């Protein structure tokens, strides 16, 4: 087995048993990136010097004989909307093309304190708006399973880096599926924690009532390791909270719910079959399964996109050509600076969402669109609350299809939005959710989504781990 194929826990064992050094491990990844990333294009920036110096520090720590963390010396990739001090943070946008992060995000600070090794920053849909990584202002990322296909998005670079062994694990962000859907398309594990479980200090804001940071990993066991390392209350993010993690339960006591509205139409038959087989596998492992109802499912996409675009239009008002980033300021006219900076700096999808959100929040339309969406959001949330009175977690496909071809959906924004039908309701309700690989359709991976009540990451992490151990 090559060093770059190891999971976090395997690499950790190798490091503490001195089978190889952090520098060996880090160089194995850097050399592989040099060789293979031309084909995949997972990375926007490679932080070789930072990685090598962090690896040397981790080696010193390990050889000193002191007890080290399981993440010490383990190389990761970071989505390019999570700040790493002194490193470019582009959000895959021309407007931030040369922006240097002035400080570390809370999650980066936590990982650095544990001796993590940062390999680089990964490609994404511009400002995390998209489901294919094609909205990057720089280049599209390719799916490692077949480079004619998209890796999913928006954390497509992070997912592809893990799937192609260009990182041991990665961080991404998930606003409506941006961790789980690329994890599903690339055949890896992706966890979106509960809204508030992980600090977002240093994450570039997109839709603030939906955004969460989470891990993309090779196994559910690794996802648990990274989640435990980054979670918890942070005074710099007032929406963050401490959450329970007892992990002391018999996983087979949990009851599984299957939403009947999720298997009606629109799912590719192959995906439906693979998901149903996986559900059958859970049943044969001893889980009790019952049908639940999420009656407002058909309203998820309009509700999600109205809230998403409204919040985005407000958050992205900060890119004004004055404080940082691109600036077209050669004429002495303030409005002209705004118009030209934003007109040239943002890509098409970002502009489209700012336009939609501005419309939904504008005078005369606010009640009919934005407020209505927030009310329907309550109904979607209540659907889940009712379901969780009967069951402990819900199983569903992560995405209605496997990865699609590059350019297949790029000219039809609405068809791209419909990709989020199973993932977006989870963000609207603020729930924790994990996608795990369960099979292949025409050699492209298919993912299964496990969703639980707020702050019950432990349930889905244990259930996912149990499934993977008994696969």
């Amino acid at each position, binding site marked *: 087995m090559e060093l770059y194929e190891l999971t976090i826990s395997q690499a950790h064992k190798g490091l503490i048993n001195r089978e190889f050094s952090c520098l060996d491990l880090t160089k194995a990844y850097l050399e592989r990136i040099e060789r293979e990333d031309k084909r995949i294009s997972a990375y926007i920036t490679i932080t070789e010097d930072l990685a090598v110096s962090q690896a040397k520090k981790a080696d010193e720590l390990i050889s000193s004989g002191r007890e080290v963390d399981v993440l010490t010396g383990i190389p990761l990739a970071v989505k390019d909307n999570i700040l790493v001090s002194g490193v470019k943070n582009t959000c895959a946008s021309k407007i931030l093309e040369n*922006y*240097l992060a*002035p*400080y570390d995000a809370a999650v980066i600070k936590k990982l650095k304190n544990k001796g993590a090794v940062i390999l680089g920053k990964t490609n994404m849909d511009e400002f995390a708006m998209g489901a294919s990584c094609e909205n990057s202002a720089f280049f599209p990322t390719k799916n490692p399973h077949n480079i004619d296909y998209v890796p999913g998005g928006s954390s497509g670079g992070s997912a592809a880096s893990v799937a192609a062994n260009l990182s041991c694990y990665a961080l991404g962000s998930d606003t409506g599926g941006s961790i789980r859907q690329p994890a599903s398309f690339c055949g890896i594990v992706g966890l979106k924690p*509960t*809204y*508030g479980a992980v600090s977002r200090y240093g994450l570039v804001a997109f839709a603030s*009532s939906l955004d969460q940071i989470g891990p993309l990993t090779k196994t559910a066991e690794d996802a648990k390791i990274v989640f435990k390392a980054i979670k918890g209350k942070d005074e710099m993010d*007032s*929406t963050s*909270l401490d959450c329970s993690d007892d992990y002391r339960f018999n996983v087979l006591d949990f009851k599984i719910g299957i939403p009947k509205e999720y298997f009606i139409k629109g799912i590719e038959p192959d995906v439906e079959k693979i998901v149903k087989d996986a559900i059958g596998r859970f049943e044969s492992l001893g889980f009790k399964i019952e049908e639940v109802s999420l009656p*407002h499912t*058909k*309203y998820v*996409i*309009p*509700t999600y*996109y*109205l809230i998403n675009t409204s919040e985005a*239009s407000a958050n992205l008002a900060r890119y*004004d*050509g*004055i*404080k*940082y*980033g691109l*600036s077209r*300021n050669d004429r002495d006219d*303030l409005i002209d*600076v*705004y*118009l*030209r900076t*934003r*007109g040239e700096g943002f890509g098409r999808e970002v*502009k*489209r969402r*700012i*336009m*939609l959100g*501005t*419309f939904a929040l*504008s005078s005369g339309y606010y009640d009919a*669109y934005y*407020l*209505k969406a*927030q*009310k*329907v*959001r*309550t*109904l979607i*949330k209540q659907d889940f609350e009712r379901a969780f009175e009967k069951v402990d977690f819900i199983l569903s496909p992560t995405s209605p299809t496997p990865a699609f071809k590059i350019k297949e959906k790029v000219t039809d*924004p*609405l068809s791209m*939005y419909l990709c989020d039908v199973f993932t977006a309701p989870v963000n*609207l*309700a*603020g729930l924790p959710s994990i996608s795990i690989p369960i099979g292949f359709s025409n050699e492209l991976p298919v993912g299964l989504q496990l969703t639980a009540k*707020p702050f019950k990451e432990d349930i889905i992490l244990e259930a996912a781990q149990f499934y993977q151990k008994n696969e």
Partner: protein
Amino acid sequence: MISHQEVKHIAKLARLGLNEDDFDAFQKDITDILNYFDLLKEVDASRIDPSFSVIEKYPNVLRKDEEKPQLIETTNKLVEAAPEEKDRYIKVKTILK
């Protein structure tokens, strides 16, 4: 169908400098998307409260209104990130003429 004039008005509110081709493209896209969003009209949510915050147990987070010490290096980095600065101030175009 959203009008060309409305698209121009939204672009102005959003401070996006667009050209005529963009206006045409967005007129079509936004119309298509809003037509689909009209699905929400079937839902009677008149007696439902909006969910501006998703997790109920969030406490209000308050802090004292006081200055927090900041590393001078951090402040310098923030000022240096600005396209135009003068004497550690961020320079803005004339607002009142």
